[in-house]
């Protein structure tokens, strides 16, 4: 058997096209299982494979996409996994001949690993193992995992293929609008799958070649692995009673070259494609001369920093990156509340702790479950489950017990950092293989059987040992990180500088990323933040790449940002300006309103209102009233009301939207409440009393509340009856409050009929009150039909209508 991967280095291989589409043409009835049908129609399968072979395919795929226990269970055939996979492989083999490779196709089970689905990761691995072992026995050249829509499930299949066979594995996901179904973007998938040992990474299915091009482009930036692509022939359409796919063979052929230029080494086609598509693609492929395509020579091997990932996001660590902050607060040893949460399974506390650290700038989270007398493996697994579903921050698994760590690594769907290993034989032998197997990076502590050496040079020696052992086992250099360890300055203050020196030596001699558990330096001393931050600054100067620290100390982020700038890691001070709040192009300048220019003052006031900036607005008003002795009433009439009108116009013109309108109305409300306190009660005129409410049966009150907020600012007295209000409540309150207007709101077709009930009651009682209606489903026609006096299509219009109704009334 020729070596598949080495052939792939020499040339691009053309795979085949759709199986399902061809099976339907050959008579597979809708709803029948394609794999079971194959057992009775081997000759039809051979015919299809042969068509693709003749069209130029150099890789033929087995008809085993759904040949796993869980899928076959739906057809009461879960016991036939081996038979089906062996048969499918045999059928292709009879056609393939010497020059064609056979891909053992493995599709998803339709179940995501728990907690999303009902099967655990280990159960899914077992399902895939059964199928993949059968495919290997059947003699396929490589395993092709395709159309996976969840990174967790793909990881389980990849694990099974890498650990239970010796075959190369291609892993291909399917994306919609740039993400898998469960939210993974291609860059993250590439990082995680490469770390797990995938030999080829790909994308297939989706709606067509155009949608896959940006996916492949993202892959090509994120990995040096060969890439695979199999687009659909567009979406199916019905033309003259026949099913046709939108993309013709010519269109598919045109997509070949752009893919090749991005580094694709296996190209085929998915749903809807036929041998005609493959033939056209083959012609294009044959015509393409890679030597003459100068876009390809630019694709030299890329060097990457340390890359860690959650299931949806990649964070890079290294000399060319910003120094990163790893949140240290999920640690039961240091914090009672966390210990308590672990003990009582209060996972919401843990997740909240994660969120809080993330909001304060943590880009990675350390998860330590070292609770005495507990099952650390179970805690780690559950902690990961909870955190990775809620947050997209990559996790650092702070655990040194191999069995516990393995449970955690199985559960984690991204690329974790293991914290930690050290120079002890026991540690290296137990944990390095786990890192390799589960695609994790490792953090090595510079200590061994003899403890932490005092001298920096000796720490370097341990680091050297860790790095070389990790490289031996097959970890990439960028996946090895070193923590040079700091002891508390309380015992011996001279030791801190040894750590700094060790960082310099490790960076210089080994060139790996350095991380530091920072807080230990201040252990047992007062004003820990002073020491932590000063030491962090020194370490950054020595080349530190990431610190495990407390994000809730605001100085840490400041030191990191300043340190990044001063150590040349922050080109153009972009990050620094952003952190300091100066880079925001939207940031509003705060004009100096102490000047005596009334136009400026009006403009500033208008800006504050428009942007809904409550505090500066009130400050400005205070100044106008107390310092400049302006009359509050004239501020309302000459400044605020015109501003409100202008904003209403902007809204009408579609230049601002409802949220902004409301935010500005909030600011105005605060302004009014301040100004009114400065006025004698009698000087404020009530423009009218309005009863507002959402009609009976309806529980939506957002719209009604918007109208209320705006009307209040326009000087109306509002009696808000809330939601689900019966007709008699509207009537009674209107009478009691001597209201001029009742405003009715309804969102649903099933409840808007209640508006009519209210109107009928008002007419029956011959009340002088006018009725205004509005709400999502209500139309002007409907309003007229039920006898309403007015209709407002939105809040701004409602105000105009009310003004008109009151004018008529006068």
């Amino acid at each position, binding site marked *: 058997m020729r070596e598949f991967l080495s052939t792939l280095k020499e040339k691009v291989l053309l795979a085949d096209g759709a199986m399902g589409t061809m099976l339907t043409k050959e008579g597979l009835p809708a709803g029948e299982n394609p794999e079971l049908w194959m057992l009775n129609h081997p000759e039809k399968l051979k015919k299809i494979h042969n068509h693709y072979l003749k069209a130029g395919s150099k890789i033929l795929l087995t008809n085993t996409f759904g040949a796993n226990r869980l899928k076959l269970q739906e057809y009461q055939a879960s016991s036939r996994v081996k038979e089906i996979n062996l048969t499918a492989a045999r059928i292709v083999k009879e056609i393939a001949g010497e020059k064609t490779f056979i891909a053992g196709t493995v599709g998803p089970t339709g179940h995501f690993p728990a907690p999303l689905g009902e099967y655990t990761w280990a159960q899914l691995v077992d399902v895939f193992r059964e199928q993949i072992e059968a495919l290997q026995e059947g003699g396929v050249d490589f395993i092709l995992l395709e159309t996976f829509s969840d990174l967790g499930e793909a990881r389980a299949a990849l694990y099974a293929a890498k650990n239970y066979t010796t075959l190369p594995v291609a892993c291909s996901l399917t994306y919609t609008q740039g993400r898998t179904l469960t939210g993974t973007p291609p860059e993250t998938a590439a990082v995680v799958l490469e770390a797990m040992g995938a030999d080829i990474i790909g994308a297939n299915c989706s709606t067509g070649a155009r949608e896959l091009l940006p996916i492949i482009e993202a892959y090509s930036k994120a990995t040096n692995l060969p890439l695979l692509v199999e687009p659909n022939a567009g979406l199916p359409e019905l033309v003259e009673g026949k099913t046709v796919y939108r993309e013709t063979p010519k269109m598919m052929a045109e997509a070949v070259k752009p893919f090749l230029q991005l580094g694709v080494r296996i190209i085929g086609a998915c749903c809807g494609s036929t041998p005609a598509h493959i033939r056209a693609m083959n012609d294009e492929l044959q015509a393409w001369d890679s030597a003459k395509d100068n876009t390809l020579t630019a694709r030299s091997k890329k060097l990457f920093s340390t890359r860690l990932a959650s299931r949806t996001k990649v964070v890079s660590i290294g000399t060319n990156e910003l120094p990163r902050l790893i949140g240290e607060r999920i640690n039961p040893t240091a914090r009672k509340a966390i210990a308590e949460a672990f003990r009582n399974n209060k996972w919401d506390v843990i997740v909240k702790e994660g969120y809080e650290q993330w909001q304060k700038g943590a880009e990675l989270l350390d998860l330590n479950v070292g609770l005495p007398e507990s099952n650390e493996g179970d805690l780690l697994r559950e902690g990961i489950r909870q955190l990775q579903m809620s947050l997209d921050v990559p996790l650092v698994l702070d655990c040194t017990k191999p069995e516990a760590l393995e449970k955690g690594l199985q559960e984690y769907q991204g690329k974790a950092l293991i914290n930690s290993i050290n120079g002890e034989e026991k540690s290296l032998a137990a944990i390095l293989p786990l890192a390799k197997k589960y695609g994790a990076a490792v953090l090595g502590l510079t200590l061994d059987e003899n403890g932490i050496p005092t001298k920096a040079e000796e720490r370097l020696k341990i680091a050297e040992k860790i790095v070389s052992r990790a490289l031996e086992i097959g970890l990439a250099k960028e996946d090895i990180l070193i923590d040079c360890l700091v002891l508390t300055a309380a015992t011996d203050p001279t030791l801190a500088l040894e750590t700094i020196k060790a960082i310099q030596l490790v960076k210089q001699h080994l060139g790996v990323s350095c991380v530091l558990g920072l807080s230990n330096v201040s252990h047992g001393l007062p004003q820990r933040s002073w020491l932590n931050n000063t030491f962090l600054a020194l370490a950054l100067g020595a080349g530190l790449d990431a610190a495990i620290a407390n994000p809730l100390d605001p100085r840490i982020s400041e030191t990191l940002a300043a340190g990044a700038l001063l150590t040349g890691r922050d080109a153009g001070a972009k990050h620094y300006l952003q952190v300091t709040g100066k880079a925001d192009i939207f940031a509003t300048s705060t004009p100096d309103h102490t000047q005596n220019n009334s136009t400026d003052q009006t403009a500033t006031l208008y800006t504050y209102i428009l942007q809904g900036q409550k505090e500066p607005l009130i400050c400005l008003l205070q100044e106008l009233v107390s310092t400049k002795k302006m009359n509050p009433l004239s501020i309302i009439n000459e400044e605020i009301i015109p501003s409100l009108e202008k904003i209403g116009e902007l809204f009408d013109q579609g230049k601002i939207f409802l949220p902004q309108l409301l935010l500005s109305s909030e600011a105005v409300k605060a302004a009014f409440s301040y100004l009114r306190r400065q006025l004698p009660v009698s000087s404020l005129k009530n423009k009218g009393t309005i009863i507002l409410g959402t009609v009976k049966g309806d529980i939506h009150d957002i719209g009604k509340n918007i109208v209320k907020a705006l009307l209040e600012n326009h000087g109306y007295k509002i009696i808000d009856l809330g939601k689900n209000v019966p007709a008699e409540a509207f009537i009674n309150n209107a009478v009691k409050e001597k209201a001029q207007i009742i405003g009715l709101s309804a969102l649903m077709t*099933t409840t808007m009929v209640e508006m009519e009930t209210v109107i009928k009651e008002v007419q029956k009682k011959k009340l002088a009150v006018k009725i205004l209606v509005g709400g999502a489903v209500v139309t002007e026609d409907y309003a007229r039909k039920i006898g309403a006096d007015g209709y407002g299509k939105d809040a701004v219009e409602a105000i105009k209508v009310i003004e008109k109704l009151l004018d008529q009334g006068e």
Partner: protein
Amino acid sequence: MNLFKIPLNLTYHESLPFLGMNKEPSPQEKELIEHYLIKIKQLTQPIGTWKTFAVKARESARIHLAETPLQIVGSSTSEHFQSCEQITLLAATLGAEIDQLLSRLSSENPAHALIADAVASSAIEFFTEQFDLYLSTQIRHKGFFPTARFSPGYGNWPLNWQKEFLSSVKGEKIGLTTTDYFILKPTKSITAAIGWSKLPTKKTRKPCREQQTCRSCRLATSCPDRFVSN
């Protein structure tokens, strides 16, 4: 019982249409939208359930399903499912915690309530879209063409069928009920039907097109299939 659970992966961009916004928000708006997006992601564990029924009988404006009293009613509705042999009914919800948040905000701060409400609507819509994608893929793998999803209340399928709909999929198992006015509770919930068609269907076309009043739709300003008529 079939359950569908995936994390909410939407970004603030997906919420903008629900706020009637067709351009980038101001920094202040963006901050609030993101604030409530995080809040909602923290509060909710969206969940969906589904069940597939065979089409039992077909009248001109009515489809009867096997093993459930639910009927799919209305001329436009039955046209939508014309070539279908089976129909998958799905129900999805963000859960009751969101309603508590919204009702608290609604009395405290209308601007925040508006934004949180729109973000929650976009979240359940996004989740249902993913759910639809998942079910549609399975339908395709069985050799059928999935139709666009169609909900009670669309076209002329009255909302009154909501109760039968929920009992068909055992909506109560995911905490979903309906009020006497056929409003789903929790409010941020969706029910819909996807047909298994023997013939290709126009999946991209909004099922509500020209049938529901676009004026009443939250997505009216951004929907490419908007039907403009007054």
